[in-house]
């Protein structure tokens, strides 16, 4: 009989929230709590992954996620190699699979990948044998972001069952939105998406979420609002007339929050376009848990890395 209960995620890789079951989510959150305690110690490091090498493959720009993953890996004592598309042989025409296979030949045990193409991690998982963690694939999923959002919400609201969570803004281009919806639904929360009709895809209702085009109505309804960034880099055509018009109708500001007569929690996955989807006043207010999200991000990623690192 082991001293502790054995536990393992149901899948070998974390490609999306879609693949996780209730048990997995519970296990990730429980492990996150323990790592959060580790991160508050004078020495914030444990030797769990000391015999492991992890490659961070970032085919798309990132600040937060990349630093967060790298810190999580280092806090677990793993060896880390970083790769960014800008300075790589991709420019010379190498395929994704060739790049990754070359890196794996150098005896890498685990891959964290961000890629602009939706499904890139799923494609890779069909061809390589090591665990892969999706750090964002195009407009598809960003599972660790959804996990840290849900974990941060749970810290404030307790069990999310029956809680009302709004996701506001550019739903169409947001991998954060999709992962968040899947995660929150699995945790039993009610979800409403809100934004201009051009930025809300038709399939939304099939995910079991309600759709609203009216910011004030949504804010009145919800316990917490996750405000998403307007992803101008993914918009080849114009989805709304101007940023100013977007800010007027869908920007979360102090004025609209004051009309609610209740306090709601504000989340934002970052990076913030201050003055567009959210004003500085709201982003820096006491109701905002944006920096808690960033702090929890490292602990959540440590939990995922730890749970996927077993021999399996």
């Amino acid at each position, binding site marked *: 009989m*082991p001293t502790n209960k*054995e536990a393992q995620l149901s899948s070998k890789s974390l490609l999306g929230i879609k693949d996780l079951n209730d048990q997995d989510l519970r296990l990730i959150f*429980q492990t996150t709590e*323990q790592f959060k305690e580790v991160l508050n110690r*004078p020495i914030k490091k444990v030797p769990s992954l000391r015999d492991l090498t992890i490659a961070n493959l970032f085919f798309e720009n990132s600040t937060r996620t990349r630093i967060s993953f790298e810190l999580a890996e280092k806090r*677990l004592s793993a060896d880390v190699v970083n790769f960014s598309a800008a300075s790589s042989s991709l420019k010379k025409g190498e395929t994704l699979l060739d790049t990754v296979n070359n890196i794996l030949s150098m005896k890498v045990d685990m891959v964290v990948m961000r890629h602009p193409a939706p499904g890139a991690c799923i494609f890779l998982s069909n061809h390589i044998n090591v665990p892969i963690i999706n750090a964002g694939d195009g407009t598809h999923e960003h599972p660790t972001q959804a996990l840290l959002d849900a974990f941060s919400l749970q810290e404030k609201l307790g069990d999310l069952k029956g809680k009302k969570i709004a996701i506001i803004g550019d739903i169409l281009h947001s991998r954060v939105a999709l992962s968040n919806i899947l995660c929150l639904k699995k945790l039993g929360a009610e979800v409403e998406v809100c934004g201009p009709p051009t930025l809300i895809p038709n399939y939304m209702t099939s995910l079991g979420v309600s759709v609203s085009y009216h910011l004030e109505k949504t804010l009145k309804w919800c316990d917490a609002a996750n405000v998403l960034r307007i992803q101008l880099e993914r918009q080849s055509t114009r989805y709304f007339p101007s940023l100013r018009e977007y800010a007027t109708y869908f920007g979360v500001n102090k004025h609209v929050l004051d009309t609610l007569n209740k306090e709601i929690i504000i989340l934002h996955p970052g990076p913030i376009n201050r003055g567009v989807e959210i004003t500085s006043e709201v982003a820096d207010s006491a109701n905002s848990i944006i920096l808690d999200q960033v702090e929890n991000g490292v602990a959540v990623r440590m939990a995922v890395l730890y749970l996927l690192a*077993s021999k399996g």
Partner: protein
Amino acid sequence: MNEDGAGRLIMDKERFSLTIERLAYTLMEEYEPFENICFVAIQPRGVILAKRLVERISLEPGMNTPLLGILDITFYRDDFRRRDKPLEANYTDMPFIIEGKRVILVDDVLYTGRTTQAALTALNHFGRPSAVTLLVMVNRRFNRHLPIQSTFTGIQVDALDKAYVQVTWEEESGEDKILLFADKQEIKH
């Protein structure tokens, strides 16, 4: 054989409580009046033992209530990635810095010594103790993998490697006792 039909009773309720009493008195003789001393209990079952000892010691007049820290060593185990599945972590609660303190490390069973080694590594992350001693309820003398010995021992058990010693606690299973199973496979979970 006890009434469960599996496992031999090697310590009953009465001797169990006497043993805890004896350990508490030994500690009081050694560490009186418990200044600059702290208990660090290894999760999960060292915690119950350490709590009992702290409770007993604080009843004694003239003794300070010793500090008690709870340490989970899951992330420090050396068999991680050598077993099929990772282990679920328990909580750690170290509400004080152990720098310069004398630490009494507490666990239920000392067997291979690997848990103790992991605990010593983990302990270093909370400061440099001036000294560390080890207290266990059961010391299984054979099959040690590392040069680690307990300073304070409840009972010494000599058993084959395939045997299993189970300490059950009133807080957990309703009764204080220690059972010896001839084979690990026999254990009822």
